[in-house]
């Protein structure tokens, strides 16, 4: 049976509109977050996340048709300033706090292999 969009909309009133099942590929999430966790840690965090998300998923039960999302509590647009050169942080003072630096730059392991 084919339902029209309008009818689907009516049926959806009052019930969770987008109940997304919670399935977490925890290894993928950890990789995205650059967290080098062990297998045991991944398993432990994975199950904790599931129980927190089950609670958090309650937000899906609230009907929000036509509600605009709020990203920020203040109704403000971009804050601009004039494009003038101003003093910046002292480079030596900043680099003194870096784990590694060379010739005035931060130093990290190679991003790309040679050749």
């Amino acid at each position, binding site marked *: 049976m084919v339902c029209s969009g309008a009818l689907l909309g009516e049926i959806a009133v009052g019930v969770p509109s*987008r*109940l*997304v099942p919670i399935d*977490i590929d*925890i290894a993928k*999430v*950890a*990789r*995205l*977050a*650059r*967290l*080098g*966790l062990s297998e045991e*840690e991944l398993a432990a*965090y994975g199950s*904790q*996340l599931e*129980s*927190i*998300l089950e*609670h*958090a*998923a*309650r*937000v*899906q*039960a*609230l009907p*929000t048709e036509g*509600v*605009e*999302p*709020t*990203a*920020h*509590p*203040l109704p*403000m647009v*971009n*804050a601009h*300033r004039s494009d003038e050169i101003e003093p910046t*942080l*002292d480079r030596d*003072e*900043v680099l*003194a*706090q*870096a*784990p*590694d630096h060379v010739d005035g730059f*931060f130093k*990290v*392991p*190679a*991003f790309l292999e040679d050749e």
Partner: protein
Amino acid sequence: MSDPADLTIVEAAAALRSEDLTAVELLAAVRRRAAMTEANIHAYLTIDVEGAEASARAADDAFAGGEDRGPLQGIPIALKDNMVTRGLETTASSQILAGWHPPYDATVVTRLRDAGAVIVGKTNLDEFAMGSSTENSAYGTSRNPWDPERVPGGSSGGSAAAVAVGSALAALGSDTGGSVRQPASLCGVVGMKPTYGLVSRYGLIAFASSLDQIGPITRSVADALAVLQGISGHDPEDATSYRGELPDFGSQIDRGVEGLKIGVVSELSGEGTEPAVAAEFRTMLQRLEGAGAEIKELSLPSTAYALSAYYLIAPAECSANLARFDGVRFGLRLDGGTVEEMMGATRAAGFGPEVIRRILLGTYALSAGYYDAFYGQAQKVRTLVIDDFKQAYEQADVLVTPTSPTTAFKVGERTDDPLAMYLSDLCTIPSNLSGDPGISVPTGVDDAGLPIGFQVLAPALAEPLMFRVAQAVEDLAGFDARPTLASSEGAA
């Protein structure tokens, strides 16, 4: 005179001006109190001995030379250790920032220094302000001065404990979901979260940028007003800083509550509230009614979903904000063959479990396929919370709730149950989502002698009204108990 460490800012400011007290003597009194209590309380991570002494001497010189920069001149104030201080170690209670000496001052630090305040040191917190007990600190748990077996609350637990015990006259905390108001409530002091944007976040190590706001922790409502006046105002370094005219925060403070409509949020003062907290809350409602206020029961149905929305929005923002701790520019670095391995090893070793949990949660909530169902939906719930508050403020001038559903809980009691810990912030989270101001005022103690806080919420920029009701609550409560540790007899 009693021990200067027990004075309020207002009292100390008067003593400094009548030449009964010098800033150097006041700092020495606060230091003595810290020396007596730190072994039990562990409020501080760093005490700035030389810097504070230099500031105290400068304040005395200013007084001697007739220079008066206002009520904070010469007052010893502590800073939560997620506010950066140039050259003074700042860790946010994380191993990933151990040994970091920031190359700049946060705007609130600059403002306090310009006002002549004496910065005593940096206080303990839950790592990156994520927690409600300070148990997530990488440098040990702070203890509640009313019962060292119990937590001081959090995340600004070190700041609240320091003010309660007298190792600072006031402190700054940061409030993302209640992290100023909840520890203030659990430690029997005043804690205030200003309207979002009133206090610059420049130099506040970001947790959730659309929710974070710095606020004062003090021993009286008048002191909270004095600190807010010192730190608020537009700052071009913070793009979300409020650019309009500031209200005159103290303009209504002495007017009392006669004729005001005070709304009681039924969703935030019923189920889950400890009986002693509920009884104390009702007692204050009766007193407010007796003082001429009209008490109205109101429903904010969306607040039942606020906690869930918060635990999607805050981790989502935190997962983005904490990407900067990658072992490249500052802080910890572990070795790795590639940049990705170096970052993964550094972050896994440098962050504690709660921070890792929230970064994972936020990364998941923002990832492709789940964004609309979790983060996007939470943002819509945020809109509904704001709409609910707007409607409530059409029927009431201010809203009131208990600050925390419970008094201070025991160390270790909730560490194995993240959700139970999150419930500590049930009553404070909605106003972070809405951006509105709130204040916790101590009104009494439970049977175990643990303090109970009363929360007053007001619409955005209605701080004058909020302070007015808070002052009335303070006057009606007449709460003047102090923790036994806050005396030379108790600490000895």
